[in-house]
């Protein structure tokens, strides 16, 4: 398979993640859509690393996985804290910081 197929699939997955973030209201699902976008980036990194024939892109993909794990941990901690304060789990209602 040509590398082009992987890159096009990666941009399709990224667009799907963006669509989810635009459409959904629940912070949990928005975090899941962030995962989709990070994974699309990972796929592009690994495909380009195969294209160049160099493993350094795969190291980048592993680091991206670490960043994604950190983001998930902090995001889920925030969601649990929001839930504890009996605030609505809806990004349209949580607008205090909007000014």
């Amino acid at each position, binding site marked *: 398979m040509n590398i082009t197929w992987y890159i096009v699939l990666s941009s399709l997955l990224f*667009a799907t993640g963006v669509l989810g973030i635009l459409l959904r209201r629940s912070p949990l699902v928005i975090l899941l859509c962030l995962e989709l976008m990070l994974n699309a980036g990972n796929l592009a990194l690994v495909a380009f690393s195969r294209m160049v024939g160099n493993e350094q892109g795969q190291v980048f993909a592993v680091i991206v996985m670490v960043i994604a794990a950190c983001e998930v941990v902090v995001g889920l901690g925030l969601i649990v804290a929001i839930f504890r304060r009996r605030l609505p789990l809806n990004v349209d209602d949580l607008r205090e910081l909007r000014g």
Partner: protein
Amino acid sequence: MEAVVFFVAAIGALGGAIGVISMRNPFYSVLALIVHLFSLAALFLLLTSAFVAAAQVVVYAGAVMVLYVFVVAYVGGGGESAWEPIPGQRFLAPLLAIALFVELSIAVLGSALKALETHGPDVGAGFGNPAAIGRLLLEKFLLPFEASSILLLLAAVGAIVLAARRSEGGNIPDAAGLAEGDTPSKHSPSRLEGVSPSAPASGVKA
């Protein structure tokens, strides 16, 4: 053969992604994301990156998704008052997403990179195996590797501070009290018990 595997995995990845954004119940979204991650691991194997594929299955589909499942079970699914966004958002959002996809595709296909139309160069059997990645991580990328370990530690501490139970009635995050640790408030016997997602928070029910 390779094309068959690619298309099966691509359909799985795309179907999983669409499932994530279309399921009403967040629990089903998490399950769809697991399908997506396994399909991506298959794609990584096709790209001869065995270590990344294994890390994808073990770290993502294993550890991170378990965390998601616990939080979804604790917070409770549903309850999303969906589909009442700013007017026209339902129809505008797919248009914007399609525009983004077209734009990215044009940017990639119009980049005139000759190697995009190839399989990539022939690589030896050791390409992307754990030994090669480990050598790179410990020699060339040692500093990012250590920095990411510090970042993981900070994220774990931050999650504990965020999700730990507050003292009764107070809205102030008692991170300072958590750090001291020797002044337990009279109403909460164990401040850290709230970290466990399965522990019922009495304050929530009240």
